[in-house]
Structure formats: structure tokens, C-alpha cells
């Protein structure tokens, strides 16, 4: 059977670049699902800012016929009943067959034509694309879409699949690039006819590179970089072309972060660094057309950048009139949170948490950049601006660096502050925010976390686990809810970020969660020793001990009485316990190995000794022995939390 190709193009006003990939994935999936009964397969799914395009092949003329057996009256039924049944099926009694003592009718529903299915289903599939933010189109009570659809192409082979969305009907004509595409004599966009075979070539002739991979490859080659800014331009431009511009090297005196932020985030330019890692007075911009023969576009972009840099220089110069130290008092006028107070008060609290002169100095100045013109303009540069200003205002490199790093880590991928003072200020700032927010009841729940407290807590955990500082969680968390909140992040960190087994994390945390570097060491030890044959059986034995003690409601009241120990497994266990306890030293790995070496005696004990004997003194002494083992050997981890196979 001959098969057909399908082309669907949704022509839409410029869609935000960042929404295109998920939208296209959704559309591709929905169309693939729709085409399954027709045997069709999606072979191309591409999006540019002005079009969503799908090509599929292998579509049959129509879907498979459906057969259905309709059971009728028994063979013994009177003739009128049989005829009645047949009539109901739209046939005569002669068309019925017999099966298992009954009449039956094999009903064949012919599969619907592909065109019919596509016409019926595609409008809803297109309008069902989930967009993050939609508009009413055309107005109240109407549909919602990301931007108005302006044309639709839908071809099955050579034939247009007829449907319409909000008055826009399908056809076989597309539109090219706004400027590079065909235009009428009076410079209006000119529709161009396409076939499925010519589609991509027609678009290319009309200034559109359809495939994102081609646009990306072109940009990567021209820019010499590959990052999220490339992605943005891939989906912002139908024919992206990179070009270089320059700026006056005098602007290089401004903080590099400011220059890069203006270029990258405000103007979507690539900053250019030399081989020495220093910023060059150049930028790479991307235009949505093939070339710039007269240099007008380069000239225009250079002019805009100059204006932006002039603004930044103005802010810089105004800011230098007052030092950060002079600005600390101004923080009284900057609200941190209306129920908590201002940044001056926050500064004092952070300062109080810091533990040495460098971090205290950095803490004092840390928030002062919030009053600068530069940070008011470039809020994302808070901290960095302060750090740069501190350096030119004669603060020590250590203090400047700590101010610079105070907001790190900004995300899970971001590093913690590199310097000790930076870690101290960052930790104190985050801990203070957490304490204060918890104090006024701003506790994150579910997806609600308006003050990004989970991120703050994660930062605290990472600084403690990865940095130089030694603080216990109980020292930092002044209330139970906050301590539990932090513990939650500790579990998340060790399980999901560091990849430790969840039961090992539970076991280690149950034995003490205060010092996170210690937790990390104990976890690493467990992970290593866990592979050995004796570890899990010992863990299982510990769990058994814990159960026995809890069932007996054991309360330790006296030391082990050696005289009451029975010779054999019990005495052996005691001897081994005393020996291992005496030799317990070295790193956690060695300790765990020693504890695991108890396995044979523990096994022998449980095989040969009954704990709950009638003699109360003996029983109490046995429980005391078990309790001693459990409590002496649970400082690395609570083994009863380990999930063992048997």
C-alpha cells in the first residue's frame, strides 16, 4: 500500500526562545501518538521563533478496519427474533454466522481516512500545547495560545488537510524570514508555496535555517563558544549570524562582572577573553540576518553598548564618593523583611556569628553594596560589587574576597566560597536568614518557598560539609523545626547529591548528625566496609540486639558481671567485645572492620545462647552485655538502620 508523508507547520508570531524546546517535544509526542494507528512516524520536528514544524512519513491512506463480533440470539430462537437482530445490525439473517449455539454478526467498521483523522484532531493538539504563559486569542472567552497563529500549512502528500484554528485555515503556503523571505512589491510578506519535499529548501531560500542543530553548529563555529547563550540565539533567530564589535578599552577599568553582565544578560552578547584570561575590549553579537555589508548593525550595537557602559561608569564614579564603611549606617534604611527588620540589624547579627577578625570585618561591610547605584542597577551583582569596591577602597584581599563570595553557593552547581572568611560570612548570612524566617513562621512547605530557604539551607550544609569551618548543626539551629529542616537538607545532600545509600545515611545520622565532615567520613567508611562479607550480618545482629533490648524494656543498671557469664559463646562474645573495644582506634574504616570481625562470635552467641532465661540475674547480665555492645559500637553508625538482604 502506498504511504504518504505529512507536513504540519504552525506559523506563529515570535515565540519566546526558552519555550520552544519543551513545546516542540510535546507537539512531537502528541502527533506521534495520533499517527500510530495510521502507521506514520515523525521524522522531523523543528522549531524556530516563528514556526513549529513536523514532518512524518509512512502514513497509510486510512487506519485499520475494526472488526467486532456482536453476539445474537441462540440458534433455537424464533425466526422473527433472528431477523430483528439482523435488522438492528443493518443486515439480513443471511449475513449472520453461527458460533457455539448462537447467531452472531461480524461487524466491520472501516478505518477512517487519514485526512479525516488529521483534520479532526490536529487543531486540539496544536491548541493543547502547554505554554508557561499564554494570551487570550482573539479575546475574552476565546482560546489561549502563546502568541497569535498567523498561518498553517498541513499537507498529506500533495493534498491540503483542511482545518482551521480561530479563522486561520490550512494551506500549502508558508512565509519565510521577516526580512530575508519573499516580499511583495510594496514590501509586504509574500507567501511561498511549499511541498513536503521542498519544504526545508524553500525555507532556506527564504532566509530560514529550519534545523536547530544547523543553526547551533553555525553559531558555535562563528562564536567559538558553546553555552546557554548559544542556545538562546539558536531559538531567537531564524538565520543567526555572529559578528564582532569593539568597545573603548578605557571601559576595562570597570569591574569585569559589570561589563560581562551588561554584555551577556542585558545585550545578549558574548564577552571575549584573551588567552591570558583577561577580558578583551570586544564582543560578539548575533544578528537575525545573513550579513552586515555596510557595518550598520555593528555600528548600532557598539553605540548601544557604549551607552550602557557609560551608565555603568556613571554609577561606579558616584559610588566611589562614599566608601562601603561609610555606607553601613545607610543600611538602617534598607528593609530586609518587614517583620524582621533592616539590613543594618542583619549585619550586626551576621557579625556576631563570625569568629575571627577577617570575617568580622567582611561581615560588617558585606551588605553595604546594597546602597550603591551599581547594585541598584545590577541586582544580580550584589556581593561581587561590594568585593570589588572593597579592594579599591583599601580593604585587605581576604576581606574583599569574603565580601565577593558571600552569596555562594548560588546553586547546587555553584562552588562554595573558596576562602575561610568567605565561608564564614556566607554561612552566618544564611543561618541568620533561616533563623529569622523560622522565628516569624516563614517555614517552607511543599512547593512554597518564597524566600528560597531550601537553597539557603543547602548552602549551609555544603559549606559545613565541604569547607573548613567546624560548627555543629545544633550550634547553628536554635529551634527544633529549623534543626529538622536542616537535617532534611543533610539527608538530601548525602543521598541525592553525594549518592550514598539511604539506609547508610540514616544509620550514620542516627549515630550523630552534628558534625557534617564527620558524617561524611563515617559514610565513606560504611560505603567501603559494606562490601565485605561480615558487615551486613553484623548489622543484622545489631538490629536483633536492639529489638531484644527494646522488647525487654531494658534499662542499664549495672556493669557486666564476668562471674555470671556462661562459658562458651557468651564468654567468647564478652571476650571479643572487650578485645575489640580496647583495640578500637584509627579511622572509621578500621573501626568498622574491627566491629565487623565480631560476626562469628555474635552468630555463635545467638545460635547457642538463650537471652530470656528464667534466672533474672543472668538475664540482666546478658542484656547488659548486649546493651554494652550496642552502645559502644554505635558511635560510627546505628547499624540497626542498615537494610540487609535477609
Amino acid at each position, binding site marked *: 500500500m502506498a504511504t504518504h508523508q505529512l507536513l504540519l507547520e504552525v506559523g506563529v*508570531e*515570535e515565540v*519566546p*526562545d526558552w519555550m520552544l524546546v519543551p513545546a516542540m517535544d510535546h507537539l512531537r509526542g502528541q502527533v506521534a501518538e495520533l499517527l500510530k494507528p495510521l502507521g506514520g512516524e515523525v521524522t522531523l520536528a523543528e522549531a524556530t*521563533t516563528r514556526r513549529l514544524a513536523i514532518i512524518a512519513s509512512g502514513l497509510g491512506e486510512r487506519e485499520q478496519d475494526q472488526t467486532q463480533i456482536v453476539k445474537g440470539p441462540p440458534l433455537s430462537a424464533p425466526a422473527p427474533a433472528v431477523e430483528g437482530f439482523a435488522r438492528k445490525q443493518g443486515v439480513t439473517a443471511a449475513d449472520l454466522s453461527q458460533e457455539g449455539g448462537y447467531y452472531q454478526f461480524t461487524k466491520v467498521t472501516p478505518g477512517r481516512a487519514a485526512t479525516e483523522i488529521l483534520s479532526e484532531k490536529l487543531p486540539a493538539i496544536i491548541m493543547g500545547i502547554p505554554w508557561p*504563559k*499564554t*494570551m*487570550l*486569542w*482573539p*479575546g*475574552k472567552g476565546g482560546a489561549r495560545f502563546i*502568541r*497569535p497563529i*498567523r498561518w498553517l500549512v498541513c499537507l498529506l502528500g500533495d493534498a491540503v488537510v483542511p482545518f482551521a484554528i480561530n479563522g486561520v485555515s490550512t494551506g500549502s503556503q508558508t512565509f519565510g524570514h*521577516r*526580512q530575508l523571505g519573499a516580499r511583495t512589491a510594496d*514590501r*509586504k*510578506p509574500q507567501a511561498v508555496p511549499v511541498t513536503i519535499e521542498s519544504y526545508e529548501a524553500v525555507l532556506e531560500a527564504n532566509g530560514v535555517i529550519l534545523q536547530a542543530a544547523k543553526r547551533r553548529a553555525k553559531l558555535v563555529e562563528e562564536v567559538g563558544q558553546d553555552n546557554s547563550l548559544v542556545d538562546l540565539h539558536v531559538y*531567537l*533567530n531564524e538565520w543567526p549570524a555572529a559578528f564582532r564589535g569593539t568597545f573603548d578599552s578605557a571601559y576595562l577599568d570597570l569591574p569585569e562582572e559589570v561589563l560581562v553582565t551588561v554584555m551577556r544578560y542585558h*545585550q545578549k*552578547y558574548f564577552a571575549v577573553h584573551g588567552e591570558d584570561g583577561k577580558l578583551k575590549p570586544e564582543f560578539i*553579537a548575533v*544578528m*537575525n*540576518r545573513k550579513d*552586515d555589508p*555596510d557595518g*550598520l*548593525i555593528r*555600528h*548600532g*550595537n557598539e*553605540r*548601544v*553598548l*557604549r*551607552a550602557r557602559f*557609560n*551608565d555603568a561608569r*556613571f554609577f561606579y564614579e558616584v559610588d566611589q564618593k562614599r566608601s562601603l564603611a561609610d555606607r553601613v549606617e545607610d543600611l538602617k*534604611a*534598607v*528593609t530586609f523583611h*518587614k517583620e524582621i527588620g533592616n539590613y543594618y540589624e542583619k549585619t550586626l547579627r551576621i557579625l556576631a556569628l563570625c569568629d575571627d577578625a577577617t570575617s568580622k570585618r567582611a561581615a560588617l561591610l558585606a551588605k553595604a553594596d546594597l546602597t550603591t547605584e551599581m547594585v541598584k542597577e545590577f541586582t544580580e551583582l550584589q556581593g561581587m560589587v561590594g568585593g570589588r569596591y572593597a579592594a579599591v577602597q583599601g580593604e585587605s584581599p581576604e576581606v574583599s574576597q569574603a565580601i565577593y563570595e558571600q552569596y555562594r553557593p548560588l546553586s547546587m552547581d555553584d562552588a562554595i566560597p573558596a576562602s575561610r572568611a568567605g565561608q564564614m560570612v556566607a554561612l552566618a548570612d544564611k543561618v541568620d536568614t533561616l533563623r529569622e524566617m523560622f522565628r516569624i513562621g516563614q517555614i517552607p512547605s511543599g512547593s512554597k518557598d518564597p524566600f528560597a530557604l531550601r537553597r539557603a539551607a543547602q548552602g549551609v550544609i555544603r559549606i559545613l560539609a565541604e569547607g573548613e569551618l567546624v560548627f555543629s548543626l545544633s550550634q547553628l539551629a536554635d529551634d527544633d523545626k529549623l534543626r529538622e529542616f536542616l537535617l532534611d537538607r543533610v539527608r538530601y545532600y548525602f543521598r541525592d547529591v553525594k549518592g550514598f545509600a539511604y539506609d547508610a545515611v540514616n544509620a550514620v545520622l542516627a549515630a550523630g548528625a552534628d558534625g557534617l565532615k564527620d558524617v561524611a567520613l563515617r559514610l565513606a567508611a560504611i560505603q567501603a566496609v559494606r562490601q565485605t562479607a561480615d558487615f551486613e550480618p553484623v548489622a543484622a545482629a545489631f538490629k536483633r540486639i536492639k529489638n531484644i533490648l527494646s522488647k525487654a524494656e531494658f534499662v542499664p543498671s549495672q556493669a557486666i558481671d564476668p562471674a555470671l557469664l556462661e562459658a562458651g559463646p557468651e564468654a567468647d562474645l564478652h571476650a571479643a567485645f572487650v578485645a575489640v573495644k580496647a583495640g578500637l582506634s584509627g579511622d572509621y574504616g578500621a573501626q568498622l572492620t574491627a566491629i565487623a570481625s565480631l560476626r562469628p562470635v555474635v552468630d555463635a552467641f545467638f545460635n547457642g545462647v538463650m537471652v530470656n532465661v528464667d534466672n533474672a540475674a543472668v538475664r540482666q547480665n546478658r542484656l547488659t552485655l548486649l546493651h554494652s555492645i550496642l552502645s559502644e559500637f554505635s558511635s560510627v553508625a546505628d547499624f540497626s538502620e542498615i537494610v540487609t538482604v535477609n
Partner: protein
Amino acid sequence: MPSPDHLYYQDVVLTLKRYWADRGCIIQEPFDAEVGAGTMCPETFLRVLGAKPYRVAYVQPSRRPADGRYGDNPNRLYKHQQLQVILKPSPADVLDLYLGSLEAIGIDLDKHDIKFEEDNWESPTLGAWGVGWQVMLDGLEITQFTYFQQCGGVDLDLIPAELTYGLERLTAFIQNKDSVYDIDWAPGFQYRDVRYNDELQLSVYNFEMADVATLWESFRLHEAEAQRLIEGFKALETPSRRYPLLAAHEQVLKCSNCFNLLDARGAISVTERVGVIQRVRRLAVGVAQAWVVQQQEVVA
């Protein structure tokens, strides 16, 4: 006819007005009260409500006291001129019409880079929002394009397109000037000659001399007057066409201007800010809702 070689500032304005007049827009004059943006004028704020089609274009001087720079900054102005175009409902070729307007003022789009970059607009004080783009010409934002969705908290019946051209920027681009003050306004007159005093003196007033107590008092008086008028309308048994909701709207604009001046003066703390915005918003929403009711009455 303006010279094709050198378009003065006023030629840009006149050409764009002619262009939109030829496309069915009423050419209105600026609204005669202080506003922060052309959107706040009744020709936009109230006209976009309801189901009646409308097309209008007007230049609106827009006051942003906090953006004043005493005439020192080449790109920032206390008061800038916006060309505001409202096409309700938005026609299917709206973006082509817009691009045509750029060509009309001599921008050859075959030689420049034009991009529509996502930029959604929201005005908390007006209870208004929309989705759209900032239009970038060789990296310079020259126009804000918005498909209005809500105004005064009311869903719009017909989605209008709002085009806001920054006239100084656009002209500086066309004339290749680095400072708006160097723009040639008319033969023999630069932007500086026409507007410098205005920028300098009003910056001095807004930042240094505006009396905070007086401004707060003005704010309260205008707020009370707007409130009184809105309540009066609500109390009517049948909404009357002669009831002065337009006057109530003017009072809201006065409030908004007092708010902007207080803000520039540094008299509103971050904490207070949200509350004051809420107060203006409540009035704006009140006027918009009443206006919808009154207009329905007129049609009926």
C-alpha cells in the same frame, strides 16, 4: 515633506502620526495631566475596556521623576516622549504594519537587525498586564509591543495591540547621536534647546525640593476624591451616562503622580511601597469596573 536625508525629531513624530492616521487611527493630542506612561491615559486605559473597536495614536510626554538626571545623562530623562498606538482589536498583520512604520521613518530593514524579544508588561498600580515583546533594532530597544490582557483587573473583550515607541531613542538612532540632547529637533534647534531646562529644574524639584508633607497630603486628597466619586457611582440606582467617572480617573492619575514624586524623593520605604501601590490599584480597578458598567449602559 521632511527631507529624506535628515529626519528631524519632529519629522519622526509627524511621519509616524501620518502613517498611523493612514491606517485608520484617530490622532489624539497628549492627555493634559501628568502620567508615568501613555498607557495610563483614558485613550488607552479606558478605551481598551469593552467590546467597541478603536484605533488611536498620540504622543504622550511621560514623567518618571526617579529617572531624572539633571540633564546630565545622555540617555536618561525625567520626562520622555512616547508615541502610543492602540489597535483594538489587533489586526492579523499588526507586526507587518509596525515594521512598515519603521520603514516610513527611513529605517531600511534590509540593512538592519530587528528582533522581537519576549517582554511581558505589568503595571501593579493599574491592575493591568499583557504579553509581548521589546522590539530590538541593532541591539537597541525602540518599542514596547504589548497584547493587553487585563486592565483595571478586568479581562479584555477584544485583545488590543499597544505599541509604545520611545521617540528620543528612535530619533537618536536615526540621527546617529550618542546623546538625546544632541538630537536635532527642528532646523536650528536641538533637543537640548527645547528640553534641557525642563530636565534640570524638575530634577532639582523632584529630588531636592518637593515638599514631602504636601505631596502626602495631595495624595490623600486625590485618593479621597477618587474614592468619593467611585462610591457615588456604585450608589446610583441606574448607572448614568453623565456620571463623571472620567473625573474619577483623573484623580487616580493625580494619586499616581504624587506616588511617583514621593518615590523619587525617597519618602516611601520599601515596606510602605507595596501598601501605597495597593491603594492606587484599588482606585484604578474601581474606576475600570465602573467604566465597564457605565459603557454597557450607554450601548443598551
